Structure formats: C-alpha cells, structure tokens
C-alpha cells in the first residue's frame, strides 16, 4: 500500500498524577504518514509538545515489536485499537481515515491504578504470578533436562500457545467486568498442561485465583471480549481449563 498522509484529531486523556482529576484534551495533527505506527505518531505529537514547551503525553512502551506487553492504550473504544492480533506498537496509522477523531484513554480497571496520563500500574499481574506462575526447581546443578520428559505434542502445543501471553492487560481493559481471567488462565494453563507443572497444580490455581480476587478484578461473565482483543490470540479454552482445574483443586485441597 502506498504511503499516504492523513489529518487527524486526537482526544487524549491527560492526568497529572494519581490524585489529580484528569480530562480529555484535543490535539489536531496534520500530515501523519499512514506508514507510521501508532506509537511513532504519538512520538511526533510529543516532539511537537516539547518544542512548544508543553508537557508531553506519558504512555507506556518498551520493545515496540509486540513481545514485551508494555504498550497499552484504549483506542477508539478498543484495547490496542481497531486492528486484530496486534499490540499498540504494531498498530499502524493506515487503520485510520483522513479527518478521523481518535480517542485515546488509559487501560481502565481499579486493579490497574493510573500513574500519569496513559500510564497505569499493572503490578497486580506480577503479584498474581508471584503466587504460583512458576515451577519450583532445585538448582543444585543436577537438574534434569526438561526435554527428558516426553510430552504429547497437543499438550506441548497448547501449553506453548498459553505461554505466548505477554501480560499486557488488554483482556482486563476490554472486559466489561475488568476481569483478569484470560491472563490468569493462560498462566495456569501453560503449566497445568505439562508434567513439570502438575506437581504444584493444586496450590497454583487456588493461590493465583485467590490473588486475582484480592486485587479487585471482576468476575468473568463469558462475554468473550478478551479473546477478541488479545494480541496473542489466547483462547477461552484456557478459561474453561482453569475453571476445571479450580473445581478439581477446591475439592481435593485440604
């Protein structure tokens, strides 16, 4: 597709810090290349703002290649914007029309408190992982090679698919209940499917779900919005698997 240039109006949530009241602010932009990524477009805006002596818009980003999960943004009413299977850093301006108004808001959920402008604290995800999103191994030096255990290909594939979750939080941001079920279920599944993960499976699912509830995420109502907006195509299969794991664990746990 040939490069084109479009004029757009951005409506961006500006908020000085966690305590201040925020508001939407309009920023008209001229001649934006349709080849630029969404974050590059925001870079241009910030350069302008800095040159004018104004405060640049704070937003999260890191790898800019769709693997770290750091970039966020709720764009025109959708997590990571209107494209499918992409993070915001992979979203391109060719998805937008000349003259379009683009609304940009932070990921909103009580469990993701706002820090500044479009930046939120997704530490609640880390605290859930700390409750069991790992396999305890003895690092004495004679640890067995993971590949020494044969694993059926379907299980390996499903575990790998679940493991592609980058912890971006789009599932929470898009869910009408701000539920973290897709994320937590991916993290439970990737280990529940493998023999190495079975050892701690019972405590893992109970502890991680418990932490998820403590953090103030909502309950899943199976709307399926998370699966549609997830940049990694994490499937609702994982949520069903976690529900099963949870049911089993709550019956057998002491």
């Amino acid at each position, binding site marked *: 597709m040939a490069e084109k240039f479009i004029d757009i109006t951005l409506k961006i949530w500006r908020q000085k810090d966690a305590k201040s009241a925020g508001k939407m602010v309009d920023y008209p932009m001229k001649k934006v290349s349709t080849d630029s990524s969404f974050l590059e477009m925001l870079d241009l805006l910030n350069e302008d703002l800095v040159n004018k002596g104004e405060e640049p818009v704070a937003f999260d980003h890191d790898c800019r290649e769709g693997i770290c999960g750091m970039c966020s943004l709720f764009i025109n009413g959708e997590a990571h914007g209107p494209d499918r299977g992409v993070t915001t850093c992979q979203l391109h301006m060719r998805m937008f029309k000349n003259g379009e108004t683009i609304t940009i808001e932070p990921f909103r959920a*009580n469990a993701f408190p706002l820090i500044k402008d479009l930046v939120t604290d997704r530490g609640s995800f880390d605290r859930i992982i700390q409750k069991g999103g790992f396999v305890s191994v003895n690092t004495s030096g004679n640890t067995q090679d993971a590949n020494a255990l044969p694993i059926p290909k379907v299980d390996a594939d499903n575990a790998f698919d679940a493991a592609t979750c980058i912890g971006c939080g789009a599932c929470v941001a898009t869910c009408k209940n701000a539920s973290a079920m897709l994320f937590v279920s991916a993290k439970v599944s990737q280990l529940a499917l493998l023999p190495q993960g079975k050892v701690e499976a019972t405590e893992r699912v109970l502890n991680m779900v418990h932490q998820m509830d403590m953090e103030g995420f909502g309950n899943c109502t*199976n709307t399926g919005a998370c699966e549609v907006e997830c940049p990694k195509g994490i499937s609702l299969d994982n949520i069903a698997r*976690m*529900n*099963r794991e949870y*049911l089993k664990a709550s019956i057998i746990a002491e």
Partner: protein
Amino acid sequence: MSEYGITKSSVGRKILMALSGFFLLVFLLQHFAINMLSVISDDAFNTVSDFMGYNPLVQFALQPVLIFGVIFHLAMGMYLEFQNTKARNKKYAKNNGAANSSWMSRNMIITGVMVLLFLGLHFYDFWWHEITEKYLEGGAESFTGSGRDTTRYSHELQEKFVDIWRVIIYCLSFVFLSLHLLHGFQSAFQSVGFRHSKYTPLIKKLGTAYAIIIPAGFIFIALFHHFNH
C-alpha cells in the same frame, strides 16, 4: 485452605451461578411441556396440573428447591454484577463493546431483571393464587383435596390470557428471556469448565435452538389462548 472454598472465590461463585442456571433450564423445559398440554388437551393439562399442585413430593420437596434456585440465581447474579461494576470505577469515555462481544452477553443483568419483573406478575397471577387457594383460604381439607375441583386449571389459565395487555407483557418478557438464554445457555457450560472442540459448537447450536424455541413456544401458548377464547 479454608479461605479458598467454592463460595468464596470468583471462579467458584461462577460455577454455582452456572449450576443454578442449568437447574432453571431444566425446570423451564418441564414447565413448557406442561403448558403445551393446555393447547393439546384440557383434560391432560388439568390432570397434570392437579398432580403438580397436590402431590406432596412436588409441593414440599421440589417446590422449595425451585424457590431456592430462583432466589439463589437472581441474588448471586445481582451480587456478581455489583462486584463487576465496582471493579472499574472510572468508565471509558468511548467503549466499543459491539466490536468484540454480543449485546446479550453484556446485558445479562438487564434481561435478567426484566425476567424478574415478569416473575413478579407471574407469581401474583398463578403461584400466589394457588397458595391462597390451597393453604390460606381452603384450609387443610382443600389441600388433602377431598372434593376439590380438579378441572379448574385450564379455564383459570385461559382467563389470564383474555386481557391483551397481560398477553403483551407476557410475550415481551419471553423475548427478554430468549435474549438471556442466547448467551446464558452456552455460558453456563463454559463456567463449569466444559469446553471441547467437538462438543462446544454443538452446545452453542443447541443453546440457540433452546433460547428461541422454548420462549417462542410460551409466546405461542399465550397467543393461542388469547385468540381461541
């Protein structure tokens, strides 16, 4: 691990919500089957209604379970909805929910509360009527049934459907129930963890069929009695 039980976690409560939903789905099916009899044969409808109304097992074992099931479902539904609204205090200025989910899935509380309002009318019309008839005014003798009128049900039913406004409310309520079940049926399977590449597409089709055929059937019964009497 006592702080983790089924009733104390989001996942556990959803499982209970789904179980109460399954129970209501089964109940609705038998309710539909009995109502359908009223279209086919007054006698058959009267016989079954009388049985349901006076059999001690139905009255004192199944009926309390049903009342509990309905109350549990709506109380838990409202509690979960309350928690869910609370999980995001600051709402989005622009949220394009239609881009990623169905209207039905996002508005279970609205369709549920509409069904609840209908249940108010329904209890007043039929259930409260039965209770006063049997337990409050009739006395013990009327319950044991000696000399009771076992043919009153079909014409009592027909009388309810004379009033056009009642028929309209009745039909509208079933449209809401249909919307509730278009999401609810398959959702309940997901909640209890039943999902399978072979069976889930089948469950979704079955759910759509149930959610359309059963409410449409109730609507048919109402219209049938309205226009035939």
